[in-house]
């Protein structure tokens, strides 16, 4: 799965990544400073991963234990959903202009 995550700046969706620490959402106009782990999870979701896959991706990439990875992924998803419903955020067709 991690191999399918596009590097920074190559996403075709509504999200534009600038390096690993800044993302701009062309639909909402919101921009965020990210840490590298959050950036990794966001790019994973942006390239088609489901929220339930995030813990496994974190375990693979950062060698976290399963409980920590699950907690971190859930906190991240909660933060995202508070800003925008996930189905709207990751409907790539809606994001293309």
């Amino acid at each position, binding site marked *: 799965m991690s191999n399918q995550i596009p590097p920074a700046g190559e996403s075709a969706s509504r999200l534009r990544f600038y390096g690993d620490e800044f993302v*701009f959402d*062309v*639909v*909402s*106009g919101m921009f965020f400073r990210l840490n590298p782990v959050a950036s990794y999870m966001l790019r994973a979701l942006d390239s088609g991963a489901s929220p339930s896959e995030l813990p496994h991706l974190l375990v693979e990439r950062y060698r976290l234990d399963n409980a920590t990875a699950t907690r971190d992924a859930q906190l991240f998803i909660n933060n995202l959903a*508070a*800003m*925008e419903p996930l189905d709207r955020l990751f409907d790539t067709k809606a994001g293309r202009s």
Partner: protein
Amino acid sequence: MTSVAITGLHRGNNPQPGAAVAAGLRRSFPDVRIIGLSYDPLESGLYCHDLGRPDAAYLIPFPGAGAQATLDRLDEILAREAIDYIIPCLDSELDNYIELQPELHKRGIGCLMPTKQALDDRAKANLYDFCSSLGVPTPRTLAANDPDTLAALALQIGYPVYVKGRFYEAHLATTPKELYAAFDEIIRVWGGPVLVQEMVVGEEYDIVGLGDGQGGLIASCSIRKMLRTSAGKGFAGVVIADPELDELVARFIGALRWAGPFELEFIKVPGRPHALFEMNPRFPAWVDFPSQVGCNLPARLLEQLQNLPPRPLTSCKPGQMFIRHSIDVVTDIADVAQMTITGERASVTADGQPTSR
């Protein structure tokens, strides 16, 4: 030479659109002559030297003096100065200019105005009902001409509420005491009715556009306000591309069959659709931002007024942004004196030459 009269020349902390419209016109029509119609000798745009400057300026009566007073003053100006087109840039002027359209036409002055019905439908006091009929979300808004009725309506909505004038000004009221104070201040300046509006907190989105009068949209640009002043004015904005917002704009402008410039102001609470809380019947003060990135709406309006073949407009690209930058305009008290005493002045370049003609 084409001569265009514009209003709304003050660019203070609550900037008006006139100078931005003038700048946009000059970007596409370098020889255009800009006639500033001003309400106050201290309007800052009268004294600027950039693209937003008027080539000549005249004091005119406030809109509250009525359409005939406006026309009488225009006739005096026309004795001195040709005016081919007028672009009103302030909300409170539209009623007068819509009424004056036949008279302006007789004098050879062109303008593109919405119908009176469209102007009334989008008025703050009517916006809630009009949006409801279209299924366009909007904050609940009620109107009253006396403070006791307004306080009763605020209780229906629930505090805190915004207390708003029919053209300008909004105050947040968290208690009836604050509501009464806001009512007094607004009714004194703007008259009635005074509005009370549900407070909705979220990100603000603005759309500037041009309606064709047939239900279509000639062009538009959507931004998120990135910085807001204490009065809620956008001091920075970034272009967005949101199909859901575009659909709401098309539905609303289509139903109004709006002709001419407009600004739509939406607010978005996370997890809820965009809610339209205001429509301004003119270009916004930030209209020169899209003009600078290829979507020159004032120039497009002038092309339409002149029946010229329209030059293609570039879509504003998401991520393009502006940050407003205040500057000090230098002038001399003699310039203010001239405007105050005679009610008119011509702009000159740094070496004392007239700026056009």
